[in-house]
C-alpha cells in the first residue's frame, strides 16, 4: 500500500528524518511509534504531501506519490481544529468536497455518518457550541467521509473520553475490515499496541526497528514466565530457571521466573509439577514500550 524509501527531511540545521524506510501492506493496521519530537509528524506531513522530502521517495500503491493520491488518503492531524463559526453540516460538505466528492455525494455521506454517530441534531450547530469530545467526533467523520484507502490518525485517542474512544476504535476497526489501511501515529505506545499488526519505531529522526508486532515481540522474548501456585513456600531452586521475584497472594504465591540455558518451558513445567500445585503459567511478553526503551538504551 505504502512504501517509504530513504526519506530525509531537514529544517535549517535540524534533521527531522534521517533515511527512514519501511513499508505498509494493504489492509493492515500500522503503528508509527516514537517519542515526541522523533519525526512522526514530519513523516506524516510528507505522506500527506503537505511538505516534501529532501531525499527519498514514497510509493502509494506502487506509484510514486502524487497529487491524485490526495483524495485517497484521510488525515486526522494531531492539532485538531475546524472552522468555529461555520455550521457543522455545511463544514462537513465543504471538507468532503475539498477531498474530491461531488456536492450530492458529500451530502448523502454526511447524512449517513451523522446518523451512524448519533450527531443528526448537530447539523445546524456551530463547532464552538460543541464540547471537545463532540468536536473530535465531527473531526473523525470529516477524516473518513471520502472513504479513503489509507487513513492516517495522529494521536487518535487524545482528547476523547473513554466512551468515545470505544466508539471511534470500533469505527476504525470496521473501516479496516472494509479494506482501509490504517496508520496510527502516537507516542503513547501502549494505547495502540493491541490494535496494530505491524509497527515502525522511530527515535531521534531514525528508524530503530520495524516489522510485524508478533515477530518483534518474539525476537525480544525475555523467556520470563509468571507462575502461580498454592502455598507460601518459595520455589525450589533449579538449574533450569532463576526466580526473579515472588509475592504472596490470597490464594498462594505468584513468582516470576527466567528460564535459563535454552531450556524449554515444558521442561520447567515437568520439573515444577512434581513439587507444587500449579494454578497458572503465563509467558510475560515484552510490551512495545519495553522493547523501545531497551533499544534506545542499547543504542547509546
Amino acid at each position, binding site marked *: 500500500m505504502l512504501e517509504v524509501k530513504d526519506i530525509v527531511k531537514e529544517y*535549517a540545521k535540524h534533521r527531522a528524518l534521517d533515511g527512514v524506510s519501511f513499508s505498509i501492506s494493504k489492509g493492515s493496521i500500522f503503528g508509527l511509534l516514537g517519542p515526541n519530537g522523533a519525526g512522526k509528524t514530519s513523516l506524516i506531513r510528507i505522506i500527506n504531501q*503537505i511538505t516534501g522530502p529532501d531525499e527519498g521517495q514514497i510509493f502509494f500503491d506502487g506509484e510514486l506519490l502524487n497529487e491524485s493520491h*490526495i483524495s485517497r488518503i484521510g488525515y486526522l492531524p494531531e*492539532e*485538531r481544529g475546524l472552522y468555529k463559526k461555520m455550521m457543522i453540516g455545511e463544514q462537513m460538505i465543504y471538507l468532503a468536497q475539498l477531498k474530491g466528492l461531488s456536492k450530492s455525494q458529500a451530502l448523502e455521506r454526511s447524512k449517513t455518518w451523522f446518523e451512524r454517530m448519533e450527531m443528526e441534531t448537530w447539523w445546524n450547530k456551530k463547532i464552538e457550541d460543541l464540547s471537545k469530545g463532540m468536536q473530535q467526533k465531527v473531526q473523525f467523520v470529516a477524516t473518513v467521509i471520502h472513504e479513503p484507502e489509507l487513513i492516517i490518525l495522529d494521536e487518535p485517542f487524545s482528547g476523547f473520553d473513554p466512551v468515545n474512544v470505544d466508539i471511534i476504535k470500533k469505527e476504525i476497526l470496521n473501516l479496516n475490515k472494509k479494506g482501509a489501511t490504517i496508520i496510527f501515529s502516537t507516542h503513547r505506545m501502549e494505547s495502540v499496541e493491541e490494535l496494530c499488526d505491524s509497527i515502525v519505531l522511530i527515535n531521534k529522526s531514525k528508524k530503530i526497528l520495524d516489522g510485524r508486532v508478533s515477530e518483534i515481540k518474539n525476537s525480544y522474548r525475555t523467556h520470563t514466565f509468571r507462575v502461580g501456585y498454592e502455598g507460601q513456600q518459595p520455589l525450589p531452586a533449579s538449574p533450569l530457571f532463576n526466580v526473579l521475584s515472588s509475592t504472596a497472594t490470597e490464594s498462594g504465591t505468584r513468582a516470576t521466573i527466567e528460564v535459563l540455558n535454552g531450556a524449554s518451558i515444558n521442561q520447567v513445567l515437568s520439573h515444577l509439577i512434581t513439587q507444587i500445585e500449579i494454578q497458572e503459567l503465563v509467558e510475560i511478553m515484552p510490551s512495545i514500550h519495553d522493547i523501545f526503551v531497551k533499544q534506545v538504551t542499547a543504542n547509546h
Partner: protein
Amino acid sequence: MKKTFLIIGREYLSRVKKKSFLLVTFLVPLLFLGMWGGAIALSIQDTGTVSTIKVIDESSLILSKLEESPSLKFEAADLPADEEKDRLKESENQHLLIIPADILESEHMQLLSSQKASLFVQKAIEDQVADIIKETRLTQAGIDIRTLESMEPKVRITSLEITAAGEEQESNAGIAMGIGLFATFMIYLTLFIYGSQVMRGVIEEKNNRVVEVIISSVKPFQLMMGKILGIGLVGLTQFLLWIILSGALFTVGGIILADQMPDTFNAEQMSQMSSADPAQEEMQNNIIQDIQGSLAGVDFPYLIACFLFYFLGGYLLYSALFAAVGSAVDNETESQQFMLPITMPLIFTYIMAFSVLMKDPHGPIGFWLSMIPLTSPIAMMIRIPYGVPMWELALSMALLVGGFLLTTWVAARIYRVGILMYGKKASYKELIKWFSYKR
C-alpha cells in the same frame, strides 16, 4: 482549480452572509447621506444661537447702516460703556461693540464679549463695517457705487484640453482634483480594510488548527489564493452595492430634502436672485454650465475601469503580503512588527498624494510613485483624472501586475511554512529562512 473555486466560494459566502457585512453595506451610504443631508440642512436653516450686539457708535456713521441677520442682532447701547461692560458679565451671547469716532481713519474697533466671540461673529461685523466704510468713502469722493460695480471686470477661464483624437475637451482642474482625491482615499481605505481581513482570516485558520486539515486536501498556495480572491470579491461586491445604494439614496434623499424645506430653500434662492444683478446671475449660470460641461467631459467608464484595475492590482499585491504576515504570527497583536513595512509605503504615498501629487501631478515624484508597484495604486489614481499618457499608464499597469506576481510568489513561500508553525515567535531572520526552504 475546482478546489480553489470551492475555497473562494466559502470565503466569499461566509463573509457576505455575515450580519456585519450587511450592516456596513447599508450603513455606509446612509452615513454619507446623513453627512450630506446634515451639511445641507445646516447651511439652509442656520438655526444657530442669536448673538445680540450692543453698539456704542461714537462716529455715528456705522450703527444706522448695520444690517441684522437671523443670527446677529444690533442694538444701540442705552448705557455708558462702563455700565454696559458690567452688564455683559451676567449675560449670554451678548457683545459690546465700541466704534471710535475716528473709525474712518483708524479702521479699528473693539468687541467685548461675555464669552469669547466666535470667528463667525467677528467676521460678520468686520465685513459689514468694512463695506460701510468703503461706501462712505466712495460717497465722500463723489463716486457712484452702481457705476463702479458695473465696471468691475468678471473674468473667467474655460479650460480646454486637446485630447489625442484632436478634440477639445472641457476640463476642470477642481473636478479632476476632487475625483482624484476621492478615488485615492477609497483605494487607500479599502487596501487596508480588505488586506487586514485576509490577514485575520489566515490567523483564524492557524489558530483554529483547521489549516492542517485543509492543506492535506489542497496546496497551501490554493488556500492562500482562494482566500485572497474570495475576500477580493467581497470587496468588489461591497463597492458595487455602495455605488448602487448611494445613488439610490442620494436621489431619494434629495427629493425628500427639497420637499421638506421648500420654504427656506425657495426664500433663500429668491432673496439671492433678487439681490443679484443680471450680470451676477449670468455668471452663476455660466459657472453651473462650466461644471456640467466638465462633468460631461469626465470619462467615467474609463475612470471606473482604472479604479477597479488599481484596486484589484493593489489589493492582490498587498493582501499577499498581509497573508504572509498572518501566517507568521499566532495572534493579531504579534503582527504589529511585520505590519510596519507593509503599511509604510501606503501611508507615505497617501500623504504624498495629498501634498505633492495634488499640486504637481505630472512631476518626477508623481511619475516615479505611479510606476513603483507598491505605491502606484494610490499615486496613479490621483493622476488619472488630470490625464496620463497612454504609455505611462500601460507601463504602470504592467509593473503592477509584475509586482503582485512577485509578492504573491514571495508570500506563498513564507505562507506554506508559516501556517504550520505554532507557538513560535517569528523574526525577520526566520521569515527569510522559511522563504529559502525547498518544499
